[in-house]
């Protein structure tokens, strides 16, 4: 892929914004902390920046979609996030919509193959 210009980059970011939320909610059904989540999402091909992810986690927690707990068992205390029930319901709704949009776009482009 060519180096995306500014407009392309902005639109890609716009397109991905909501999917990061969905990915977090799905991934955090198993509790994890910020950096591990960042690594695993990027490893899965869901490209997200630390400057986006950390504030997002806090925001989702404030909205009651994630719960958090400080794990102090290890030498370094870490905040573990987990998807709440509300979060799971939202994830299901987002996922359904994601699939619907995917179908719609497939129909729009008329790409049957």
């Amino acid at each position, binding site marked *: 892929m060519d180096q995306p210009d500014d407009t392309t980059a902005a639109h890609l970011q716009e397109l991905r914004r909501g999917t990061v939320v969905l990915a977090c909610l799905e991934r955090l059904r198993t509790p994890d*902390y*910020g*950096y591990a989540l960042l*690594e695993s999402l990027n490893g899965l091909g869901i490209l997200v920046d*630390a*400057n986006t992810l*950390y*504030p997002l986690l*806090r*925001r989702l927690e*404030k909205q009651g979609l994630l719960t958090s707990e*400080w794990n102090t068992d290890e030498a*370094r*205390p*870490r*905040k573990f996030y987990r998807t709440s029930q509300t979060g799971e319901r939202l994830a299901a709704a987002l996922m359904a919509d994601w699939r619907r949009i995917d179908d719609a776009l497939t129909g729009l482009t008329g790409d049957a193959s």
Partner: protein
Amino acid sequence: MTTLTERYVWAAARSVPESQREELSRDLAERIADTIDARIESGASDPESAERDALVELGHPATLAASYSDRPPMLIGPRYYFVWRRLLIFLESFIPATAAAASALGLVIAGGGWEVVGQAIGIGVTVAVHLAFWLTLVFALIERAGSGQWPGTGAAADGRGSAEADPLAWTPEQLPQLPESRRPHRRADLIATLVWLCIAAGLLLWQQFGVVWEDGERSAVPLLSPELWAFWIPYLYVLIALEAGFAVWIFRNDWSPASAVVNVVLNAAFAVPLIWLFVEGRLFSDEFLAVVSPHLDADAVRALSVLFVALVVGACLWDAIDGIVKAAKGGGRGTLSFPGNRSTRP
């Protein structure tokens, strides 16, 4: 945690409200430590420089803290930007010039020469700066009041979400009337108001040179205390200019809840200082009081004082309520009984 990290965390934490500081500090400490480890592991940094590199990657602590905080990192957001800009341009277009002209007039009357031009320009600039500052401050406070929504994540950011709760939210009722459905009286109302304001402005100047009749002869005794030229009479001129601008605004946009509020504020801005000056005994000039006092006994003075205060309060109250009623009717002037006006209201 080493000193550099501690300093970073402290710098970031102090820029958020106290209630969020502890949580932010712990979150940041975790994030920084993990970032340092990752840099060393991936070989991006030497163990010695990893901490510094990690902090450089995080950027300015205040910017980082703003991204964590609920407060928008902006003075005036998209919700109020256009209202703010429109109001600022509108007010700046005539208030500083009016203030400068009024004070130039005052200074000339007080015996000033050509140097008043410089002083008047200075006053105009000062007024312009004050106006911009206070208006912006008010909007910045409005921006921060109410919903703690992060811009771009909630419905509030696009102005649709909190329409019921937000008195400044746009509603279709605020749409201006089409020109053909305006009642012809609107123009007459506007002209009457402007003529009246011109007369008031003229009287304010003329009283200095004598409207007082003493023993059947006009004497050059000022009605109002000359000391008021220092501030309060220019203030009244500014108020008159504001009223004129407001009348034009009403002519063009019709009454709305917002304009009713502005009307109340304008009336209060007139009545409160006037009554205060009167009660303090600073409103009328000593010369004028000396002329009238022989004709009045204590009871008459008391009765006239009460009458004066009641008149000012009554007139302003009536005008303020009138505006509210017109706004409550949904822009009274021109919405009723005009052919072609299909605006139906209960």
